[in-house]
């Protein structure tokens, strides 16, 4: 199904099941432990062996010697694979560094061997007996040291004459902000079980993107994609780290090939920080010029980040092209080559760190102008793409988010003069920030089957990374076919199923359900035909098909055999004619200990305008999770770089702190009643990343309101506040 015109009325608009707060259909499986995660696949007849990775202990250089003799002789060892044994490997099109290094070493903890043994314990013990010497080369690990050499590039985006307009502006802001490297730190580590049957490879893994995995496994191992099957029905969190094939998969496949047995690998926790990807640190310079009336006349956002050779920058400037009005604009990324582990997508890549900076800048600018931060944002709202005024937003309710949030949060009670609200030993403050994330859509396929019992089975390689995909897909099929949700069976995460959008970039919910919608439209046509209805006026409800006085059981359509159809949603040019984005505001109250500068969040509110909300319960769960991640980014999360040795030092969950329950207080989420007919037949968008975008800055602005201290370097830990606290003066 081609989607190239704004959607009119369709069966989803009934909202009998879609749009309702339906419980997770996979919930019982998960709480009873019956959902099989990657490392839990187990076939007692399969002579399973266990792999354990060996990581480089230098950041850059070459392996000089590698002595495997002691490891090979260790109890239970089946085989050891290094780059030498693996032979010529390709590199995945979505990988920056190779997943099995050697002799060249590209980053710390790059995998250089996999030890396969009869048990996990034997593999781990033997891996520690692999003795490696290196020729270490000098690397670059310090983004701030590289920054000065990196100026404007040809890819800078310019609208109007920024420099002139900025120089002439009555009120100007020119500040630099930094965000640190961050780790996804999801609960389930990367894990894979690989098994070969002749030249055919099956991988049970934890992947957000099944088709990407198939492609890059095939490319890395130099085998045809048709020989690769990837299965990943349950995923214990990803946040972008499982968008790409990682070393667990390739090492399991290589280990299995060498051992002649299925091999299972989970990456040890320290490998998550230094072996896989992370969100790169940024340095961001923001300049805003405005008239005394508060109208922005010039806005520039430049971002510096680093990555391995051929890696991408962290695009922290993208939202600044679209979020606020202003005739003269400049945005650009400057990329340094660093020899730290690979930087790549983490939840809301670009916008998450970009808004952490931009939305502090907006708070600062409002203060310079003597405007309320909400009014300043309202004044600079735009209903069109500021770089191309002929291109309107499909639906933009940022102002509504600001107004409704202000009312619900009690913004009017905010003391605009910072550092003046006290509650015992606590300094209190509230802050606001806007959230913004584009609505990405991508082709997504599904197969639906109707059987003679009246059960509809949906098959798509879409994944559920804890987001609720199973549930919203079941809701979609139930609504379309007029069945109760119990009559829908959803099967996900298998490359044997049609290729879907997958889970990433908050495109999954809208695109994947639209693909299921398309397949269900086709199924309805065949069902109507089989039952002798005119498909245009047939109503599917209560497990029946009806038209006028006639009615028939849906199941009867399949009485002579299962009906199977397949279709995909394909998106046309509406994205070109209309800018499709999601909007939010985040309100945060913090308390800062007047003596110790400990910051504790007291309450949070997010107001989201993100198209139709397919399931307010699972959507809310995503947003409160994102708000929690935002608190982590604001107050504690930082991968500490050892700039001498080139690695992230705090590589476990004791050292890399994320919020615990005690850090997260009352959270409230409001979804504006919104449908966006430009986005898809579902009229939905995504919220999973929107919920994170801007949260950090709302916390930072609340800390400023509480203390009068403007921290521009995340995370806002107490050491950055303590000497400047009002009570310290």
């Amino acid at each position, binding site marked *: 199904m081609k989607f190239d015109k704004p959607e009119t009325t369709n069966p989803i608009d009934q909202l009998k099941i879609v749009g309702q707060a339906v419980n997770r259909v996979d919930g019982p499986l998960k709480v009873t432990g019956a959902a099989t995660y990657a490392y839990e696949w187990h076939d007692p007849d399969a002579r399973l062996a266990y792999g354990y990775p060996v990581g480089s202990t230098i950041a850059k250089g070459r392996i000089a010697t590698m002595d495997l003799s002691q490891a090979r002789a260790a*109890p239970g060892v089946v085989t050891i694979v290094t780059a030498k044994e693996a032979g010529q490997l390709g590199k995945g099109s979505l990988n920056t560094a190779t997943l099995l290094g050697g002799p060249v070493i590209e980053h710390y903890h790059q995998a250089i061997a996999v030890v396969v043994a009869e048990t996990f314990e034997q593999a781990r013990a033997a891996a520690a007996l692999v003795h490696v010497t290196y020729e270490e080369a000098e690397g670059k690990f310090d983004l701030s040291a590289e920054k000065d050499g990196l100026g404007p590039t040809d890819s800078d985006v310019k609208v109007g004459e920024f420099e002139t307009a900025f120089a002439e502006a009555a009120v100007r802001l020119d500040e630099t902000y930094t965000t640190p490297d961050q780790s996804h730190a999801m609960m389930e580590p990367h894990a894979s079980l690989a098994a070969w049957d002749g030249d055919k490879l099956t991988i049970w893994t934890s992947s957000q993107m099944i088709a990407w995995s198939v492609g890059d496994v095939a490319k890395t191992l130099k085998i045809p994609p048709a020989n690769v099957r990837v299965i990943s029905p349950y995923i214990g969190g990803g946040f972008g780290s499982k968008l790409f094939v990682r070393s667990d998969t390739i090492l399991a496949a290589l280990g299995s090939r060498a051992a002649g047995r299925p091999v299972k690998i989970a990456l040890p926790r320290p490998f998550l920080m230094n072996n896989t990807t992370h969100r790169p640190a940024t340095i961001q310079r923001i300049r805003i010029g405005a008239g005394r009336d508060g109208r922005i006349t010039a806005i520039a956002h430049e971002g510096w980040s680093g990555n391995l050779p051929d890696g991408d920058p962290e695009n922290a400037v993208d939202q600044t092209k679209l979020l606020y009005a202003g005739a003269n604009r400049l945005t650009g990324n400057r990329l340094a080559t660093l020899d730290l582990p690979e930087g790549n997508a983490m939840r809301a890549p670009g916008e998450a760190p970009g808004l952490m900076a931009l939305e502090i800048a907006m708070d600062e600018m409002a203060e310079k102008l003597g405007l309320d931060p909400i009014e300043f944002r309202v004044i600079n709202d735009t209903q069109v793409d500021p770089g191309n005024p002929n291109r309107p937003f499909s639906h933009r309710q940022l102002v509504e988010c600001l107004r409704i949030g202000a009312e619900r949060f009690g913004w009017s009670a905010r003391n605009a003069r910072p550092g003046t609200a006290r509650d015992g030993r606590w300094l209190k403050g509230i802050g606001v920030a806007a959230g913004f994330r584009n609505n990405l859509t991508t082709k997504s396929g599904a197969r639906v089957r109707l059987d003679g019992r009246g059960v509809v089975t949906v098959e798509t390689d879409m994944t559920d990374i804890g987001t609720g995909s199973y549930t919203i897909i079941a809701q979609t099929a139930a609504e379309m076919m007029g069945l109760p949700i119990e009559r829908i069976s959803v099967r996900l995460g298998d490359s044997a199923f049609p290729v879907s959008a997958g889970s990433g970039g908050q495109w999954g919910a809208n695109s994947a359900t639209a693909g299921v919608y398309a397949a269900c439209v086709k199924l309805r046509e065949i069902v109507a035909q089989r039952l002798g209805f005119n498909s245009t006026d047939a109503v599917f409800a209560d497990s029946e098909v009806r038209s006028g006085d006639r009615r028939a059981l849906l199941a009867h359509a399949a009485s002579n055999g299962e009906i199977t159809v397949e279709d995909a949603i394909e998106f046309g040019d509406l994205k070109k004619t209309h800018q499709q984005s999601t909007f939010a505001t985040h309100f945060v109250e913090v308390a800062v200990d007047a*003596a110790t500068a*400990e910051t504790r969040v007291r309450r949070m509110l997010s107001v989201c305008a993100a198209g139709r909300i397919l399931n307010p319960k699972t959507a809310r769960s995503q947003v409160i999770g994102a708000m929690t991640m935002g608190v982590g980014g604001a107050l504690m999360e930082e991968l500490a770089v050892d700039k001498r*040795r080139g690695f992230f030092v705090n*590589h476990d969950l004791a050292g890399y702190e994320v919020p615990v329950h005690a850090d997260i207080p009352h959270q409230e989420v409001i979804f504006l009643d919104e449908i966006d007919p430009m986005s898809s037949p579902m009229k939905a968008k995504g919220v999973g990343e929107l919920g994170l975008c801007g949260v950090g800055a709302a916390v930072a602005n609340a800390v400023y309101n509480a203390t009068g201290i403007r921290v521009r370097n995340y995370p806002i830990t107490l050491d950055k506040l*303590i000497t400047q606290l009002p009570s310290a003066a």
Partner: protein
Amino acid sequence: MRAFTYERAASPVQAAAAAAANPDAKFIAGGTNLLDLMKLEIETPTHLIDVNGLGLDTIEATSEGGLRVGALVRNTDLAADERVRRNYGVLSRAILAGASGQLRNRATTAGNLLQRTRCPYFYDTAQPCNKRQPGSGCSAIGGFSRQLGIVGTSEACIATNPSDMAVGLRVLDATVETMKPDATTRRIAIAEFHRLPGDTPHIETVLERGEFITAVTLPSPVGGKHLYRKVRDRASYAFALVSVAAVIQQDGTGRVAIGGVAHKPWRVEAAEAELPRGAKAASERLLDGAKPSHENAFKVTLVERTLGSVLEEARS
């Protein structure tokens, strides 16, 4: 994790003798720290002596009016004991400020005293660390040291002791009771129990080879207000940046011990004379000779502020 042999000790003296017989043996009680370290091969014992069956899990009154806490009393039970809560509140609060409910259910009194540092370089076996591998150097000095020690440090090591319980015991002047392989016992003042790193940071306590902790005794109650304030980057389940254990009397005199700043719970009795004059005077004496790094210099201010806040709370 390396392969190891395992035995269950039948008595404290047998446990001590078994440990003395094998230089690579370790006692195991709750295992909440040791097992993690073994998985990472930071600890590589060839033999484990399980002491969980020895009893030693009761809290009893002493003839001096104090309490004897068995070595195997779980942290949860110690913190919840009515006598501890009534007369040694600082200890109960310190314990509850550490770890998580699940860990405290397993962790023991003796094991808590013997837990190893959380210095990130100690935890990465690819990095030099004098504590893990004597003579290899200290990668924390000049590296990521935000969490690490500021006082009593050495050229060889700037690690901190991560225990909260030990800070509470220090301010209460507890005593560690041990048994040696020859069945003799000794009593070690908590002040003497943990060592400063010097040039042997791998030797963390004064325990001799095979010497087995049987109990920790608390002297008779000292009254006063018992406070424990732990400052950290998140609200729970994190090691202290700085913690303050304090027992403050009505007249403003009292005792304080500091956690998160040194290789042992940090207490300077001379500084306590300054307490009535306030946190600034007391913390200056407490941290006399401190050598913070660029990354953890804030702890000097934080000690003073936290102490000030605790003193204020004691007055209120």
